[in-house]
C-alpha cells in the first residue's frame, strides 16, 4: 500500500516538475524578448528622436479629433524593454497564473516597440494600420466562420480556399455584367453554397475522405478560375471590372474617436461579417439548431439516437459554411480591388482555418484571431511604405509573417485546442 502511495507522490512531483520547467521556459522566453527589444531596437536608436503615431483619419470627416501619440523613441523602448524584463523575471521566479495572457501582452509590447522603432523620427498613421487590419482580417474571418459552421457539425472543410477563389471570380463577373455589387455578392454566396453542397455530397453521401474531397475542390476551383480568366476575363476587360462596394460610415458609431473609423467606416461586406460573428455565436450556443449542430459534431451516434437527423444537420451546416466562405471570396474582388487575378486568395482560406483553430472553434474567438492575422498583414503593407532606410528588412520577409504565425498557432504553442470530437469522421447510419 505504501508503495502505491509513494508512486502517486512521485508521479505528482513529476507533473509538478514538468509544470515548473514550462513556467521557467516561458519566463526565459520573455527575457529573451526583452533582450531583443534592447539589442535590435534600443541600441539602434538615438536620444531626442520622436516617433509620431497619428490617431485620426486622413479624411476631413467631422469627428472628434484625438491628439497624436508623440513618443520619445529611445525612452519608450527602454521603458518597454524594462517592463518586459520584469515580467520575465516574475515568470521565472513565481510564475503567472494565466501565462497565455502575459504571452499576448509581451507579444503586443514587442510589436509596439518595433513600430515605434520603425517610425523613429517620422510619423505613421496607426489608425490607418488598424483600419486596414480590420479589412484585411475580414476574408480570414469569413474563412474561420465557415470552418466553425462546418466543423462544429463534424465536417472538415479544407475547401474554403477554393470556394473563396471561385466566389471571388463569380462576384466580379456578375457585378461587371449587372453593374451591381450587391448582385455580385449574391452570385458569390450562391457559388459558395454550390461548392459547399458539392463538398457535403462528397463527404456525407459518398464518404470520400474529407481532406481529399476538399483538396479536389481547391484544385478544381484553381483550374476553372484560371481557365475562365484566360478565356473570358483577359480578352473581355469589361467582364473584369465589377467596381467596389462604397464605404458606408455608420451614423453615430463612426463618430467615436479611434474605434469609430477603425470598425464603423467600412464596406457592407465588413458589416455583414460583424453581424455573422454575432449571429453564429448566438446560433451555436443559444438555439436548438446550435445544440443539434454541436451534438452531431461531438457524438453523432448519440445525436441520432435522440432523433436528430445527422445528415440533414451536416448538409445544412456545410452549405451555409460554403455560403459564408463565398462572402469572404467576394471581399477579394468587389470588396477591395474590383478585379479578379489568378489565385487572388493567396492562401487566405487556409489561414482562416488556422484562425478557427486559434479561436478554439468559436465564432468570436475565430474573429479575434483573424484580427491578429489582419494586423500582421496591415503592418507588412505599411512598413513597405516606410521604406528601406527606416526598416532595413526586405518586404518579402515580412510577407512571410502570417504564414509563420499560422504554423506556430497550429503547433499549439498558444494553449491546447480541442476540436469537436467527431470532427472529420464520416457518419454511417446503422
Amino acid at each position, binding site marked *: 500500500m505504501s508503495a502505491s502511495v509513494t508512486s502517486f507522490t512521485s508521479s505528482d512531483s513529476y507533473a509538478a516538475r514538468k509544470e515548473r520547467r514550462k513556467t521557467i521556459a516561458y519566463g526565459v522566453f520573455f527575457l529573451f524578448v526583452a533582450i531583443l527589444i534592447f539589442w535590435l531596437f534600443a541600441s539602434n536608436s538615438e536620444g531626442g528622436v520622436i516617433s509620431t503615431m497619428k490617431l485620426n483619419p486622413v479624411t476631413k470627416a467631422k469627428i472628434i479629433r484625438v491628439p497624436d501619440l508623440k513618443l520619445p523613441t529611445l525612452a519608450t523602448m527602454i521603458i518597454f524593454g524594462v517592463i518586459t524584463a520584469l515580467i520575465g523575471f516574475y515568470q521565472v521566479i513565481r510564475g503567472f497564473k494565466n501565462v497565455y495572457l502575459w504571452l499576448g501582452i509581451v507579444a503586443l509590447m514587442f510589436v509596439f516597440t518595433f513600430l515605434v522603432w520603425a517610425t523613429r523620427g517620422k510619423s505613421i498613421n496607426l489608425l490607418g494600420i488598424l483600419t486596414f487590419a480590420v479589412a484585411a482580417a475580414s476574408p480570414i474571418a469569413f474563412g474561420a466562420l465557415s470552418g466553425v459552421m462546418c466543423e462544429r457539425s463534424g465536417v472538415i472543410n479544407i475547401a474554403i480556399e477554393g470556394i473563396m477563389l471561385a466566389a471571388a471570380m463569380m462576384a466580379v463577373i456578375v457585378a461587371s455584367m449587372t453593374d451591381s455589387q450587391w448582385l455580385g455578392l449574391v452570385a458569390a454566396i450562391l457559388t459558395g453554397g454550390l461548392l459547399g453542397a458539392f463538398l457535403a455530397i462528397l463527404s456525407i453521401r*459518398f464518404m*470520400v475522405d474529407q481532406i*481529399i474531397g476538399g483538396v*479536389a475542390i481547391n*484544385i478544381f476551383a484553381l*483550374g476553372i478560375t484560371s*481557365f475562365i480568366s484566360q478565356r473570358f476575363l483577359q480578352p473581355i476587360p469589361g467582364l473584369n471590372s465589377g467596381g467596389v462596394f462604397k464605404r458606408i460610415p455608420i451614423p453615430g458609431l463612426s463618430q467615436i474617436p479611434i474605434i469609430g473609423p477603425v470598425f464603423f467606416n467600412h464596406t457592407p461586406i465588413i458589416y455583414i461579417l460583424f453581424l455573422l460573428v454575432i449571429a453564429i455565436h448566438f446560433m451555436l450556443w443559444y438555439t436548438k439548431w446550435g445544440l443539434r449542430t454541436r451534438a452531431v459534431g461531438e457524438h453523432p451516434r448519440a445525436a441520432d439516437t435522440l432523433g436528430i437527423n445527422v445528415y440533414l444537420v451536416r448538409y445544412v451546416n456545410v452549405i451555409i459554411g460554403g455560403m459564408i466562405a463565398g462572402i469572404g471570396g467576394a471581399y477579394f474582388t468587389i470588396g477591395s480591388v474590383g478585379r479578379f487575378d489568378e489565385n487572388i486568395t493567396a*492562401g487566405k482560406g487556409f489561414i482562416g482555418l488556422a484562425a478557427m483553430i486559434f479561436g478554439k472553434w468559436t465564432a468570436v474567438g475565430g474573429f479575434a484571431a483573424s484580427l491578429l492575422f489582419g494586423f500582421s498583414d496591415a503592418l507588412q503593407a505599411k512598413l513597405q511604405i516606410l521604406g528601406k532606410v527606416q526598416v532595413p528588412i526586405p518586404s518579402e520577409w515580412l510577407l512571410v509573417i502570417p504564414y509563420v504565425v499560422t504554423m506556430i498557432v497550429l503547433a*499549439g504553442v498558444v494553449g491546447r485546442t480541442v476540436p469537436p470530437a467527431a470532427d472529420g469522421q464520416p457518419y454511417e447510419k446503422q
Partner: protein
Amino acid sequence: MTESDVSNSSPDPKSTESLAQEFRSTRVRDAVLVPILAVFTGLLIGAIIIVITDSTVIDAWRHFFDDPGGALLATWNSIRVAYGALISGSLGIVEIWQGLQALLHGQGGAALGQAMIPLAESMTQSVPYIFAGLAVALGFQGGLFNIGGEGQLLVGALSSVYVGYAVTGLPWFLHLPLALIAGLIGAGIWGAIPGLLKAYTGGHEVINTIMMNWIIISLSAWLLKVGGPMSRGKLPITPEVLPTAQIPQMFATQGNRFHWGFFLALIVAALVWWLLYRTTLGFEIRMLGANPKAARYSGINVKRLYVIVMTMSAMLAGMAGSVQTLAVDRWVGLGFSGGLGFDAIALALLGKSHPLGVVLAAILFGTLRNGATRMQSVARVPIDIITIVQALVIVFIAAPAIVRWIFHLRTEGEAAGPIFTKGWGS
C-alpha cells in the same frame, strides 16, 4: 489498398484460394478499370467545358432552330480541333509514321527526328511528374498528405541551381552529383519541418505544407528579384547552370529536350518500390499509413517515422525541381513550379500510391500537359483545362461510387482509400 496488403500478409487458414481469387478480380478491376474510366470521364467533362465556353459554339447554338446541323458541327469541330491538337501535340503518331516511311524510302532520318519531338517532349514533361507523384504517393503510403510538393520542388531547384552556377572548377562527375545532393538536402530540410511539427506538436501537415509553400514563394521572390541574392544582373532569374552540372540531353535534334533524367526517374521509382515492399522501413511506413494505432502498439517509433516519411517525400519532390532545372530549364525564375505539386496529388491517387501506377499516371499526365500546350496555341483553349481534368480525376478516384454509378458497374465491396482526416491533432 495499403490496408489490404498489410492484412493479407497474415495467412488466412480457410479457403485462401477462392478468397484470393475473388479478391484479385475485384482488385484488378478497381485498380485498372476505375482509373481508366475516371480519366475518360474527366476528359469528357473537360470537352463539355471547352464546348460551352467556346463563343463560336455558343453562337451556333443560338441559331439552333435555323441550322441545327451547323450547331452540332460547330460543337464537333470545337472538340475535334482542341483534342486533335492535344493528341498531335503530345504523340504525333501520324508524323512519326510519315517520318518512318521517309527513312525507309532512303530520304534520311531528319523528318523522323523532327516527328519524334512531340513524343520525346511528352516523356520529358513526365519526368518531374514521376518524381512529384512518387513524393505524394510515399506520403500517402505512410498516412501523410504532402501538399507541399510545390514549395519543396522550388527549394530543390533553387538549391541545385545555386550549386550549379556558384561552384566552379569541378569536373562534371563531381559537380552534377553535388548539385543533385544540394537539391535533396534543401528539399529534405523543407519537408522535415512539417514532419517534425506533425510528430511533436500534432500540427496538421496539410496546412503546414501549404504555409511552407507560401513562405518559399515569398522568399524566392526576394531571392530572384532584380538585385536579389540569386538574380542574374538585371533579370529576375538565376544565372545559368554551368555545363558541368547539367544533365545532358540525349538527342542533338533542335527542340528535342529528352534527357537522361527520364531514366533516373524510373530508377528512383524502382527504388521507392523496393523501399516500400522489400524493406523493414517500408513495411513500417505502410503499417503507419494503414493503422497508426497498431503501428504504435507494435513498438514502431511513430514520431521518428513521420519525420522520415515527410523528409523522404520532400526529397522526391525536390528531385522533380532539381532534375527539371539541371536538365531542361537550366535556370529558375518566378512561378517556376506552376501547379506541379497539386498535379502530383492526382497522380498519386490515380496510381493508387503504387510506384508503377504513379509512373504510368505521370507519363499519361505529362503527355496530356504537353499536348495541352499545343491545344492552347492552336485551339486557344487555356492549358488550365488539364488542371480541371485532374481535379475531376481526383474526385472520381476518391469516390469510385460516382464512376460506378455513371457506368453502371456492379459493386463488390469498397476498396478503402487512404485516410487523412484525423482531426487537427495537437
